[in-house]
């Protein structure tokens, strides 16, 4: 299939339809509105469900119900809306329900702003709601990657029986790029949803969807069962890309939109004869610690660049295990860092003009 030029939010919506999404439940919030708007038309045309809920809280609980009944369900929102959805997300993790949640991040805290941001990093990678759980969290940098990962994410959610978060920012939601919606993506080995409470009692006995365990020993057992899933994610499903790392003397750590800008910074630095690489996390949970273990010996510095005041920075500090000095550069509040300023920060770290 040839590429088509699409807006990010609409491309992500179409990717969900291509992935066999049965039902979307959402609530308006900028900058993700084109996503539900697109689905409000095309889900019905595909015989699927679209509901505009009365709130984010209701929307995520509708996702819980649909997922519990065995459907492929999803929702999308932006930062303050994702905060409201944390109740239902926690319940889904507890009840082991698969779902896909797209977060088109904007600046905060509070009502914040509507411009791009990565300030939900901790909200996304630390579970987000109450209790001991994590979401498999994917952070694409292009529309093509967003489309591919969304298509795969429904499989990933079903495989782990856990919600998957797609972490993008307003830039990816609002930009237009050519995308191939029919590119093959990895298929996961999925079992039939024999656990679903879908009103099919006569064929397999009664099913219950639940996150309540009043006996502490039962809940501990359940928590450890969930932990085993998160450990499997950590041990076997880290994803990252190393860019230009051969002979690099410094590595920028950046994900999503920021890693694209860092690529331009690399070109600027290359013209100055500076060898700079990029560690680009694709999963932000599990954090790709492996990427830091196998860096070439030439890398002497790390520079973390984020659209936050330094949220991923903490994960880099953990992954780095005190090996390399770490610097940080962030723009916040919806301000997008420019390639020049990232390049200048690199020059500042490695000695600028004197370096040559």
């Amino acid at each position, binding site marked *: 299939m040839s590429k088509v030029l699409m807006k990010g939010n609409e491309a992500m919506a179409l990717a969900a339809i291509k992935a066999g999404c049965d039902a979307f439940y959402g609530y308006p919030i900028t900058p993700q509105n084109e996503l539900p708007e697109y689905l409000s038309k095309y889900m019905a045309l595909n015989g699927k469900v679209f509901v505009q809920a009365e709130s984010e809280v209701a929307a995520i*609980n509708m996702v819980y119900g649909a997922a519990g009944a065995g459907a492929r369900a999803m929702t999308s929102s932006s930062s303050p809306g994702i905060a409201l959805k944390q109740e239902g997300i926690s319940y889904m993790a507890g*009840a082991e329900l698969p779902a896909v949640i797209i977060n088109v991040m904007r600046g905060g805290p509070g009502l914040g702003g509507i411009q791009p941001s990565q300030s939900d990093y901790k909200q996304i990678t630390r579970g987000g709601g109450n209790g001991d759980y994590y979401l498999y969290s994917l952070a694409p940098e292009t529309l093509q990657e967003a489309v591919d990962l969304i298509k795969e994410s429904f499989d990933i959610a079903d495989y782990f029986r856990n919600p998957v978060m797609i972490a993008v920012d307003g830039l990816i939601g609002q930009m237009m790029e050519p995308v191939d919606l029919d590119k093959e993506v990895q298929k996961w080995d999925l079992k039939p949803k024999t656990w679903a409470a879908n009103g099919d009692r006569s064929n397999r006995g009664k099913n*219950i969807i639940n996150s309540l365990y009043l006996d502490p020993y039962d809940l501990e057992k359940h928590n450890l069962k969930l932990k085993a899933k998160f450990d499997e994610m950590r041990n076997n499903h880290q994803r990252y890309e190393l860019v230009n790392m051969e002979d690099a003397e410094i590595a920028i750590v950046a994900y999503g939109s920021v890693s694209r800008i860092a690529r331009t910074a690399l070109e600027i630095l290359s013209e100055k004869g500076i060898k700079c690489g990029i560690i680009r996390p694709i999963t932000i949970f599990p954090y790709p610690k492996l990427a830091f273990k196998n860096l070439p010996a030439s890398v002497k510095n790390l520079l973390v660049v984020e659209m936050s005041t330094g949220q991923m920075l903490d994960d880099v500090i953990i992954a780095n295990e005190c090996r390399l000095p770490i610097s940080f550069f962030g723009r916040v509040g919806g301000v997008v860092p420019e390639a020049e300023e990232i390049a200048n920060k690199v020059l500042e770290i490695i000695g600028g003009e004197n370096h040559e």
Partner: protein
Amino acid sequence: MNNVKTVYKKSAGLTDLPLSYCPGCTHGIIHKLVAEVLVELDVLDRTIGVASVGCSVLNYKFFACDMQQAAHGRAPAVATGIKRVRPNNIVFTYQGDGDLASIGIAEAIHAAHRGENITIVFVNNAIYGMTGGQMAPTTLIGQKTTTSPNGRDEKTQGLPLKIAELMATIPGATYIERVSVHNPQHVNKAKRALKKAFTIQKENKGFTLIEFISTCPVNWGMTPKDAVDWAVDNMIPYYPLGVYKDKTAGEEK
């Protein structure tokens, strides 16, 4: 022995687990009625129930159909999610007054507003039972609870919320009735109301809610008998029984 006949047995709509309710509480009667109606309408196998948070939280164990346990107040949203992807299944929520009338009022109103083809079984005992007897939106004026120790005061705590009357004003709702289970006559009447609600759902005619006046002897600080009398003397006058909305009225029986 040939003359021995079974005149009564536990409904197949309930599991064999002992109910977790306090002596004198009417949840048990209401569970029985829901179970019997699901069996009598021959829909038990295709029913998905939604348990809420409160005293009835564990009813996902008690009803014999498929069940989902919802967050506090969110049962109508969960039921919406289920019903939209499984429109041929029967979907009901079972919610108390803390759950529905307080934290979940938006979900209840908007499920009705969208005309979701689900049934809400709403149990009003004028108090938060599970958490130890705090004031609910439905607590009567002057009624003492652990968070209205001097009795509910209209000036600072408002007047009790009338859910059946409120839900009847929602244009999308199809059938709203308030019933009581304080004596056998009313138990039978309540069962007819429930059966009507589930029949309406079965016929895809939309949103139904049956409000049950219930008791909480433990948190009201009364014997079961006194609690029933108190409900009759105090709750029913403020929460009159009857049909508050019936869009199917006038249709052929």
